[in-house]
């Protein structure tokens, strides 16, 4: 079998798996898995850009994904006017003060001669800035959070269409990536691991604790959607009629319709991202990146600005993760900061990239879809396996009931086994880099 044939077959396999879900379970489940698979594929592309093309080890994927999520709230939720009146100005002033302090510090750092005087002045500026900032910031926050804490208690967003939040999510992620890159890239790669981990923790901590921004752990629920609501469709006689014509009851019809809308939207975004990534990869730019990856010292000696390129691709990858994060939050319809956990948003995404084949965009897409499918479907598979194991045991034996209790944990076990099997037989991933 030639390479292309093999790849087509692999994608077909994923397609068949999803179709099977549709036939055996339900078409709603199938479409849902497809949609989330598409989002996962985007995240995998983002990580693949960083890891597969540049060897940048990003442990903080969850942070960028979370920033994307934050963007949905900031863009799409209606503004809370009372909160703006109460503390909006204060917050803006505080942010300006904070930014000003940092700019001043950097300015002084550049302008003054190194020495103890500079250190003292810098520290003084920072401390004074910090206190001034807190003095303006704290009362404003308190004022905002006092306004209907159970319902709002935050500034709200801009009330714009949520589709706008997708690029904005990318922008926020780009900003964070730029800061990390400026401080940590160009030094040893271990820094990047720590820095990304750290910044992700910081982003999540901010999202959990700054209630004025996005309600913190009180979550924002009921984000607007770019597609119609099922309930509306179910009440719309025209739609109900059309559904009936297709032999669907209104509930199934509406849920399928909504999911299909998402599928199309996501597919478009994914294809655009994929096209951009592929074009970049196959150009002199991609060649330069490969050269840098192969041998940084030599690339540097050949006039390539290794740090600059790393920064660029690190930002690009993060942007993709941010966009995917925004899309995912849109799909969920809510922002819940406590869900951003490394197991799901760092380890699992890597698994996708590696199983798919790092260094290959199509591999990343395949890995994203396939691993997502497994992540969701190993649960029933694990249960089945456990049933098989315990089938021969006498009913009511302690071991049997203990094992049945543990069924849920077969999920991770099965995931691990699948991974090891793939790695055993296809160590460079299912669609390896050429």
């Amino acid at each position: 079998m030639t390479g292309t044939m093999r790849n087509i077959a692999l994608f077909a396999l994923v397609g068949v798996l999803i179709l099977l879900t549709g036939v055996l379970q339900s078409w709603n489940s199938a479409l849902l898995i497809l949609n989330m698979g598409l989002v996962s594929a985007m995240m995998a592309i983002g990580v693949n850009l960083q890891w597969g093309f540049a060897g940048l080890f990003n442990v903080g994927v969850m942070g960028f994904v979370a920033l994307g999520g934050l963007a949905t709230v900031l863009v799409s939720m209606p503004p809370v006017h009372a909160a703006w009146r109460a503390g909006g100005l204060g917050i803006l002033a505080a942010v300006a003060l904070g930014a000003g302090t940092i700019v001043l510090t950097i300015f002084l750092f550049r302008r003054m001669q190194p020495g103890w005087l500079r250190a003292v002045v810098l520290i003084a500026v920072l401390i004074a800035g910090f206190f001034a900032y807190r003095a303006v910031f704290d009362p404003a926050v308190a004022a905002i959070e006092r306004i209907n804490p159970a319902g709002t208690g935050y500034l709200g967003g801009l009330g714009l269409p949520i589709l706008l939040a997708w690029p904005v999510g990318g922008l926020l992620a780009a900003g964070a990536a730029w800061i990390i890159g400026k401080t940590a890239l160009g030094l040893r790669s271990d820094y990047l691991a720590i820095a990304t981990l750290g910044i992700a923790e910081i982003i999540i901590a901010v999202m959990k604790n700054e209630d004025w921004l996005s309600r913190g752990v009180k979550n924002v629920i009921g984000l607007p959607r770019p597609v119609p609501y099922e309930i509306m469709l179910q009440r719309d006689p025209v739609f109900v009629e059309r559904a009936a014509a297709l032999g669907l009851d209104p509930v199934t019809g509406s849920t399928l319709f909504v999911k299909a809308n998402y599928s199309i939207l996501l597919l478009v975004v994914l294809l655009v991202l994929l096209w951009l990534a592929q074009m970049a990869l196959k150009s002199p730019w991609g060649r330069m990146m490969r050269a840098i990856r192969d041998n940084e010292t030599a690339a540097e000696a050949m006039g390539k600005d290794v740090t600059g390129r790393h920064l660029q691709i690190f930002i690009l990858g993060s942007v993709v993760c941010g966009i995917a994060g925004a899309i995912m939050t849109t799909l969920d319809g809510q922002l819940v900061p406590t869900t951003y956990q490394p197991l799901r948003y760092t380890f699992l995404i890597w698994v996708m990239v590696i199983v798919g084949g790092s260094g290959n965009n199509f591999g990343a897409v395949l890995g994203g879809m396939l691993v997502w499918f497994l992540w969701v479907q190993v649960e029933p598979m694990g249960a089945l396996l456990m049933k098989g194991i315990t089938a021969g045991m006498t009913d009511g034996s302690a071991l049997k009931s203990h094992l049945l209790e543990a069924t849920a944990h077969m999920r991770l076990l099965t995931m691990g086994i699948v991974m090891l099997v793939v790695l055993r037989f296809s160590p460079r991933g299912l669609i390896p880099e050429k």
Partner: protein
Amino acid sequence: MIKVKDLHKHFGGFHAVDGANLEIAEGSITGLIGPNGAGKTTLFNVIAGVLEPTAGRVTMAGKDITGLPPHELFHKGLLRTFQIAHEFSSMTCRENLMMVPGNQSGERLWNTWFGRRRIANEERALRAKADEVLEFLTIEHLADHRAGQVSGGQKKLLELGRTMMVDARIVFLDEVGAGVNRTLLNTIADAIIRLNKERQYTFVVIEHDMDFIGRLCDPVICMAEGRVLAEGTLAEIKANEQVIEAYLGTGLKNKVNT
């Protein structure tokens, strides 16, 4: 061309380069010899921006280049090869050459999406140039081989080839000859001489093989213990007592058993 003034490089308490002063004339092929551990490679690394000097200045054509990063030095026309070949092993030999020129428009991300025609033209020119260089080095048959899979000597040729893809002004060669077959080494020497003659590259060559040095270099600088010990033509150096004692030695003591 290059002037090194009172350069120091210390590792902890150890003074690898300890006040080196030297000057490299434009258009020359200067040999740099010296016992193991004399600080030659370290001096190279400092000039090429890989290491920060502890003290001292390096100037190139009158401009201070101390502490500039390697990629900026590259754009100033300072190139180097490595003692151990640093090829881009997963790329083909041709790609190894094509990636060298700076400021390719295809290296800008924007152009890869919206400037494809321009890139295509540029690529064609680059490819032609790369093939030309490969031919010059007599390895045109390796154009589509992965660079990681060619032999050690061929990698060294490739290293040299990269310096030919752009208009270099000065090229530093760190032990091109070590481990290279003598016949091949002659080819390399010819290439160097041609580059020097035809393109007016300046070369600085570290080497322990006196035949090779003799073929190529004038003048020769001998370093020892981080400082310049002697300078002059090879003949002068060979006659220098200190150099003989520290570096050249007097030949085999044990004669071959009969």
